[in-house]
């Protein structure tokens, strides 16, 4: 049964998007102020994709993500305390501080892991989908990846096997127009990654990735197909990252123009959805501001929690590395 875009569902999608945006805004500040170790790849601009797809998934459905994975974790139900603690490398983090930004993983919410390897998550999600089919659950798996990853062997191998075995897999390509700093027309001869689906014997569709309702509707059909045993779908969402490849301002490389960024920002997915919520009388400016404030307060409290949390104990270095009999 496809989930309908009721008022409650739309408000839920909106909240997921606001949670991603605010988590990332604050994470960006932490990185640029040198508060957290390493580089962060932030999801700002792409929120409609994670929120629109995840609104159809349960904790028992599994996803894999990318190096730009915070948005997927938040949308899947990840908690700010454990997420910020992970960015800080603290023991209270989702991976006890050992994974960091690019490897957040939590089985309770069905998050099989962000992944620093481009395209690395796709075969993992395909494997999860295989398991679901083998065990005859009605669960699905979804893998998020970018236009760049669709050039990787891992994408092609996983797509082939998923179509062959009709696995309950949704391949969500977040085409943000760039593989890191390389424009799409410099890394592939096609513009619609969805065109590749036909080569594997699965449907491929293109949807406006800045329109959360459009993503929600398209993802609903793909998830319903998967749950009904009709096999995988390649869902291409045309989107854009507002921040740089790394961090907020990034390295200041001239691979895209300010005009292009501004043009996409005029279609900010959160603002687009908020306009519709207000226009349809589903929410008000005041209620929307209250959501933003509540989430911001939660983020600030979680950052404090992360800062105050202890680092992992060096004596535990080998814990969770080797299999130990219980």
């Amino acid at each position, binding site marked *: 049964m496809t989930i309908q*875009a009721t008022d409650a569902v739309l408000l839920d999608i909106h909240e997921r998007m606001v949670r991603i945006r605010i988590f990332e805004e604050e994470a960006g500040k932490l990185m640029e102020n040198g508060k957290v170790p390493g580089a962060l790849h932030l999801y700002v601009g792409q929120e409609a994709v994670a929120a629109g797809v995840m609104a159809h998934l349960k904790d028992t459905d599994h996803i894999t993500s990318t190096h730009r994975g915070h948005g997927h974790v938040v949308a899947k139900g990840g908690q700010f305390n454990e997420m910020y603690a992970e960015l800080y490398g603290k023991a209270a983090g989702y991976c006890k501080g050992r994974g960091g930004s690019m490897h957040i993983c939590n089985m309770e919410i069905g998050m099989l892991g962000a992944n620093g390897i481009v395209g690395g998550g796709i075969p993992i999600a395909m494997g999860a989908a295989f398991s679901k089919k083998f065990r005859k659950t009605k669960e699905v798996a979804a893998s998020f990846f970018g236009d760049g990853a669709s050039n990787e062997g891992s994408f092609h191998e996983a797509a082939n096997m998923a179509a062959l075995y009709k696995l309950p897999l949704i391949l969500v390509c977040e085409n943000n127009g760039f593989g890191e700093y390389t424009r799409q027309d410099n890394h592939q001869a*096609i*513009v*619609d990654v*969805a*065109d590749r*689906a*036909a080569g594997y014997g699965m*449907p*491929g*569709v*293109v*949807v*406006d990735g800045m*329109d959360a*309702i*459009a*993503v*929600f*509707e*398209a993802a609903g*059909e*793909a998830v319903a*197909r998967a749950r009904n045993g009709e096999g995988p*779908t390649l869902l291409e969402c*045309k989107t854009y990252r507002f921040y740089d490849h790394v961090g907020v301002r990034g390295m200041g490389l001239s691979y895209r123009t300010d005009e292009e960024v501004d043009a996409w920002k005029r279609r900010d997915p959160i603002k687009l959805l908020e306009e*519709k919520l207000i*226009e*349809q009388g589903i929410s008000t400016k005041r209620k929307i501001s209250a959501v933003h404030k509540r989430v911001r307060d939660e983020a600030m409290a979680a950052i404090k929690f992360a800062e105050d949390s202890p680092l992992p104990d060096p004596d535990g270095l080998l814990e969770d590395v080797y299999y130990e009999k219980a």
Partner: protein
Amino acid sequence: MAKPLGIAVNPASGKDIRRLVARASVFDNQEKRAIVRRALVGAVEAGVREVCYVPDSHGIAKSALEEFEGKLSAEAVESPQTGSVIDTVGGARALAERGCGAVLTLGGDGTNRAFCIGWQDAPLLPISTGTNNVFPVLVEATLAGAAAGLVASGRLTLAEAAVRAKAITVKVEGQRDDFALIDAVVTRERFVGSRALLAGDMLKAALLTRADPAAAGMTSIGGLIKPVSKDDDYGLYLELDPEADGVNAPIAPGLYQVIGVAGHRRVAFGKAITVTGPCVLAFDGERERALKPGQKATLRMQRDGPWVIDVARAMQLAAERGLFRIKRARKARRTAS
């Protein structure tokens, strides 16, 4: 007088979610390129020497034209490059300004609708590469190119090879006007969303320029009750109600739904039909405009749409006039000595 042949390819046609819910065909852009190449072969044989094309974001027309260097002069018209429907609308305007004698469009109903927003009385030969394909024709591109080429090159007149299509003009209170070629549908949906129009129980009313029982789309609902052909000088209005008796209609390719029809009536040209929001208006199979509560829109039908070149008629005329006959120079007969 020979005029340029126009080409407008919609790179985004045939890719939306109707491939999931309605089993619509997938048109990848390599196939669209192959279609343009075949059409150009036909156009060259028909006498076309000059082509103007809308530069699409996927470079389909441009790359298809590469192999015709020396046979055709090709010119990219100046048009917006947004990767959206704006490109098709702006491209149509540019082809009109350039004075194209015939235009090949590649897309579905939505593409041709967008094209006609930019150039309402365009001389079109629409090749079907879309989802809902009531307006464009499923035709071998070689012949489509030849037929359009005969008109562009002035060997056939538009009046003899084409028929003017009906169209619906939509005036939206306080906002820009809109346009439909086949159908304008009022739905209880709230959002444009993924655009697909697939929830039959949400439909409130439909105005059809044609009601075709042999086509997929909203047109089939009327078609299975009271057919109206593209040649009839009137349209059909349907009141839709999920509680009413109705028809089992193919509302999209690969998708039958039972649609309740509370009433139907003929609509004369020029008759105004007023719609009041909240509702979403869908044109030619896609949700397009959301009306706010109390906001009004007025729909009117006329035979003031594009001229549509009829491939069969054009080729029949070509045969009658011997336009493709070839006379060979006879060799002198050798006699045995």
